[in-house]
């Protein structure tokens, strides 16, 4: 009896619920949200985004905010976990009602966010995660934008650099077995085939692997004379050490996962390892960079540029906030769809690049704002990651 009553009433409840439709969206507010890792191994990523975004927002608010209201910044931790990134996205869009959301450090999170972002229709601007597919996801209208490097372009850029350095043109690709590394594999293969070549080896490894000699041996035996590397510092260090053990020391060019503390971990072994960046505080600074650096120093109590582990993230987030703010002004409203439209019309001379315009509605590849010509190579030199042209490595090239 009891069961039957319960089942019957449950069915009735379900039927009642069926009549409700999705609630209407409320008015958006002048805030920019962000889901990034602020705890866990990649906490520095979330920290760098926070720095860049907050400095930009401080500047904008000092000049009167957007549409007469001050901008706010809300950051939630996703600890690198996609489901939490998805939850945070919904929280930012539906609970905080922010006008836009900045992306985080992890590519897996960005890929997962693409779905809710396009479903809800809130502009998303990635500032670190470089996975190609997260932004080029084939959806129209596409609410996913990026002011950061894109693996597809990074791959082309690095392959180009690699072929300059490689004598035989035999290039090995070592990448981490994560969404980021695996996502880059087709990009690198593509970039190679565009110049009529093929990778001689593509080897993968897991986080926290202690020894990569098997992979290194296979790459070496395949005859490679240069290694392209998609890794984080810890694994990058293991690769350098495994190469040292095997007695093979090819030139290495890497994506920016090894821009953190590889120099400290690997010591002299890291010397000469080249890393792509969109921005760096290291080396000599021009006046614009110097002014930005002074603000960072003052606000966050940083003493030395090397304390900023992800300079690209700081600058990308700074530029992204400005682009969003300008889009809001152009749209004349905090409305998501209108701001999205306006993003395609923003022109802005930023820290990383000169955006003219930031995005191009006609070209699906141009949901990305930073063009490859703004990518920079830096090189590990005695524990410091310096701009290539300011080192002996740059001069000899």
């Amino acid at each position, binding site marked *: 009896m009891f*069961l039957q009553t319960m089942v019957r009433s449950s069915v009735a409840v379900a039927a009642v619920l069926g009549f409700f439709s999705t609630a209407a969206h409320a008015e958006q507010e002048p805030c920019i949200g962000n889901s990034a890792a602020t705890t866990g191994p990649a906490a520095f990523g979330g920290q760098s985004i926070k720095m860049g975004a907050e400095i930009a927002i401080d500047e904008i608010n000092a000049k009167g905010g957007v549409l007469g209201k001050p901008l706010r910044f809300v950051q939630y931790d996703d600890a690198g976990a996609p489901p939490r990134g998805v939850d945070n996205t919904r929280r930012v869009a539906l609970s905080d009602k922010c006008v836009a959301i900045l992306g985080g450090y992890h590519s897996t999170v960005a890929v997962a966010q693409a779905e809710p972002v396009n479903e809800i229709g809130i502009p998303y601007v990635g500032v670190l995660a470089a996975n190609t597919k997260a932004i080029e996801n084939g959806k129209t209208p596409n609410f996913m934008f990026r002011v950061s490097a894109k693996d597809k372009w990074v791959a082309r850029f690095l392959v180009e650099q690699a072929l300059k350095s490689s004598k035989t043109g035999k290039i090995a690709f070592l990448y981490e077995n994560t969404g980021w590394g695996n996502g880059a594999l087709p990009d690198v293969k593509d970039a190679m085939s565009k110049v009529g070549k093929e990778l001689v080896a593509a080897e993968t490894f897991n986080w926290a692997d202690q020894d990569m000699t098997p992979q290194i041996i296979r790459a070496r035996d395949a005859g490679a004379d240069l290694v392209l590397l998609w890794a984080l510092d810890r694994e990058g260090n293991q690769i350098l050490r495994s190469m040292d053990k095997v007695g093979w020391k090819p030139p290495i060019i890497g994506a920016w996962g090894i821009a953190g503390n590889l120099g400290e971990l690997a010591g002299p072994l890291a010397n000469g390892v080249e890393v792509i960046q969109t921005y760096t505080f290291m080396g000599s600074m021009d006046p614009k960079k110097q002014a930005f650096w002074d603000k960072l120093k003052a606000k966050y109590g940083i003493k030395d540029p090397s304390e900023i582990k992800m300079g690209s993230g700081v600058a990308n987030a700074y530029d992204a906030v400005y682009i969003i703010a300008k889009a809001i002004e152009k749209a004349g409203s905090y409305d998501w769809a209108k701001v999205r439209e306006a993003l395609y019309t923003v022109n802005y001379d930023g820290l990383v690049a000169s955006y003219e315009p930031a995005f191009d509605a006609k070209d699906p590849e141009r949901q990305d704002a930073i063009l490859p010509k703004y990518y920079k190579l830096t090189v590990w030199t005695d524990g410091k990651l310096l701009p290539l042209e300011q080192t002996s490595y740059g001069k000899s090239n």
Partner: protein
Amino acid sequence: MRYLAPVCFFIFAAILVAVPLTAGNEYELRLFMLFLIYGIIAVGLNVLVGLAGLVSLGQAGLFALGSYSGAILSTRLGFDIVGSCIGAAIISGLFGVLLAYPTVRVRGVYLAVVTIAFGIIVENVAIEWQSLTGGTTGLSSIPKPNILGIRLSGFAFYGVLAVTLFVFTLLIHNLKISRFGRTMLAVAQSETASRALGINSTGLRTLAFVISAVTAGIAGTFYSFLNSYISPDIFTFSDSVRFLLMVILGGAGSTFGPVIGAYLLTYLPEYLQQFQLWQKFAYGALLLVVMFALPRGIVGTLQWAFNRLRPPAPALAATEGLPVETTLRHEKKMLAAELVATALTVRFGGLSALSNASLRVKGGEIHALIGPNGAGKSTFVNTISGFYRPDEGRCELDGVELTGRRSLDIARLGLARTFQNTELFGEMSVLENVMAGYDQRLTYGLTQALLRTPKMRREERECRQTAIGLLAFVGLSQYANEEARFLPFGLQRRLEIARALAGRPRLLLLDEPAAGLTTQEIDDLEAMVRRIAALGVSILLIEHHVDLIMALADHVTVLDYGQVIASDNPTAIQDDPRVIEAYFGAPLDRAAAVGAGA
């Protein structure tokens, strides 16, 4: 108390209806839907942890299996949400069976490690099998929830989740208060005793694993529909720990505990976010606090406190029970049970515990088996009841071969036993202990238990009445609602006899029932054994107490060094020189001493 469960279910339903009506925005509703999904996992896991007493730290693996199965079925084959759920339930259910297999051989921490390993294997297979699972990039663009192609709105999907959780909670509550819940608890507390009562412990464990796997699988499918994206890093070891913590925090074994635990642990991260870098630390600290301060969980602690304040009446109205004369009566033709053991030999390593021992218990007789310490009496009992395999020889009950059968099958053939060191289900009530003994007589199946059909209710009523009658028979009526472990030792022995009788045995093995009893208690025991024999049950009594044997036994068999040295009526045995020598190592003239002692 009788209406507590229906009232709770009503409140639960009311909450499930109220939440979507009051949710401030879609985000809040989504978070609540996430809780519903975790609730489904926790409720299923509760069967494994709370009832069967097995710890799984690989539940995230089953959750992942369900998620991937559901996602692949819907994206590749275009299944709707119902089809995907069924597919995922079948696949994860099969893996549940697979996971249950190791429990045959390993328990406790070993089993926990097997489940951890399972979780890690699933996670890595999801990474490795790129063509199917998308590797580390995961699967995206999982279609929106739909039934037969009709897309469900957010609220309709909410309805599906809410109804599913509600129904699962209800079904598992029904399972808990049926024979399945009772015997799972019994198996968790003493597998040995369960086997001796004809309870299929392996089957029950498999059932528990399958239930927890199927619920996790269904929850996984819902999850992939809700998130429309899954990747291997969603299903890690720490998620398995979280699922387990949900059950323990809420109260393992209780109906609503896992639901409450799931609710708290779904919303907790939202609040922990303010601790920033300390949030993982806070999470660990919480786990620690729960283990120390609330080992019974929230609901368990409430129940315990409530029972402390208002303990249930220990006694039950004896009138509720049925007299044993009617409940234990056998058909006439079944009455006489004859046990024949022929030339049993059991060796442990090089040591022969039994060699060539034969014995015959005639139908309806009280047969005593005596012998000095280490003579092989316990080995004999354990061999007959199927706990040891004889190396040679055979035994039969009414011509049915017992050797080679599992102990639970032997019990079902009508051979019941007690244990030298009592093996009660300590944390169950006295009444439940006896009802567990009745289990082999119940015929209703799983579906009937889940739906509480009239047949199920009728059989349960009979079971309860029989048990109450049996408690009256052994004089334990006034302790019916006490936990068995709190009974004084002498009463524990009686309870074991009542439990053994509940299965309506035709032969009862009593393994040293008088050990540790007072003189008064032994007298009571003597009377009880006579009354049991009067019910038409053959009895094999293993004892030291000469008085008791002489008073009770129709026939006595004496074991020494694993061999039968005499078998005759009590008086003849008393005078048998070999027996005297075995006991006293002395020649004939000491016979008088034994005679005087008798």
